[in-house]
């Protein structure tokens, strides 16, 4: 049986770990609310620009903007949205599992693959896989800004425009609720705005100054809004996953402390018993 003093030390160290996990749990819990608020606030712009894009795609099905025209896929690009920091349960692991699936599929079809990453975790992961990385952004923090999105997205969108990739996927986590986050993959390019509602196609905008440049701007803003949304949503997922992970870590620590305390008491009792029997034996010898 371990020495009482060693066990006591172990208890102390578990207890201080527990303090940290508890604190992280509470911090994450308070950050979720703000992250969700941010997610909610980004919706009006995203909805607004999507409505415009959908209408444009509808009244100008013949419009030859490269973002709107699907072409045979000979190479693939993937944008991955991950967190900067760990200690958030299986959030990134699940995402990377999905990423590996996509990579495997691309390899089976012999498609060259290039990636862009948001968040430190994804950057490290794709570096280890030795993928062709076109752009990375990390150090995004708890409140992603639109400026975080623009650089890597532009690199990937330019690659698409220049024909170096024929299809661009966006991988990120979907925030279902605090307990459930789901890795999802979406096609970012070519755009295919959903057409569930039948819009009357008999009117069109007046375009100022001209349609071509305007539509280019609109589509770029739309892409930015979608990726920004993914970043904000991922930040939400991160806090939720961290809160849950830290909660169970705190509970595990409590359980471990209980068991250690039991062992400590046993060891202490054993030491006392031994001492007494030694004293008694000594007294008898005299």
């Amino acid at each position, binding site marked *: 049986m371990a020495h009482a003093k060693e066990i006591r030390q172990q208890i102390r160290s578990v207890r201080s770990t527990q303090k940290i996990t508890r604190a992280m749990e509470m911090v994450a819990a308070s950050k979720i609310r703000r992250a969700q608020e941010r997610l909610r*606030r*980004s919706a*009006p*712009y995203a909805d*607004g*620009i999507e409505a*415009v894009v959908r209408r444009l795609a509808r009244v100008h099905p013949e419009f030859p903007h490269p973002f709107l025209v699907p072409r045979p896929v000979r190479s693939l690009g993937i944008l991955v949205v991950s967190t900067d920091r760990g200690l958030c349960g299986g959030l990134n692991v699940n995402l990377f599992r999905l990423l590996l699936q996509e990579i495997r599929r691309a390899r089976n079809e012999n498609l060259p693959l290039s990636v862009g990453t948001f968040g430190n975790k994804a950057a490290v992961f794709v570096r280890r896989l030795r993928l062709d990385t076109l752009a990375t952004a990390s150090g995004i923090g708890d409140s992603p800004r639109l400026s975080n999105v623009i650089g890597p997205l532009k690199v990937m969108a330019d690659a698409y425009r220049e024909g170096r990739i024929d299809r661009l996927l966006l991988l990120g986590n979907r925030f279902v609720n605090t307990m459930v986050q789901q890795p999802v993959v979406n096609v970012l390019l070519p755009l295919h705005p959903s057409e569930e509602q039948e819009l009357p196609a008999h009117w069109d905008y*007046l375009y100022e100054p001209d349609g071509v440049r305007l539509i280019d701007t609109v589509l770029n803003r739309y892409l930015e809004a979608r990726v920004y949304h993914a970043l904000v949503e991922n930040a939400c997922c991160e806090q939720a996953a961290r809160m849950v992970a830290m909660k169970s870590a705190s509970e595990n620590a409590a359980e471990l402390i209980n068991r250690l305390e039991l062992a400590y008491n046993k060891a202490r009792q054993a030491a006392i018993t031994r001492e007494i029997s030694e004293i008694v034996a000594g007294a008898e010898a005299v």
Partner: protein
Amino acid sequence: MMRIRVQIVDPEAPLYSGEADAVFAPAELGEVGIMPRHAPLLTRLRAGEVRVRHDVGEESFFVTGGILEVQPFAVTVLADRAVRSAELDEEEARRARQRAEERLAQKAAELDIAHAEAELAEAVARLRAIERLRKIGVLK
């Protein structure tokens, strides 16, 4: 009286949503005024003031650029970035103008020049908005 529904949003947050009698915005080809029953219009915005006129007066917002979408009874300003004009900071705008001018003077790479020009245009628009608001007494 007919009204138009106005929304001013930027990617990070909605800024204004309400009814208005008229909206004025800095379209790329010049300032436009939108009244109810305007023809559908899609245009880019320059940096400048978006003004919303309604019963109780006029509210002013500053956008750094963006897209204006007009339908007969709805106006949506999809700004790149938008703030209430009252929150504009003159000192900051002056500094931004100076920074952009210095960068232009250095004649860096072509890409930088385009960037600096955009920044300069934005800073100038900011200052112009501040000046106008001061004249009508909204800003001190």
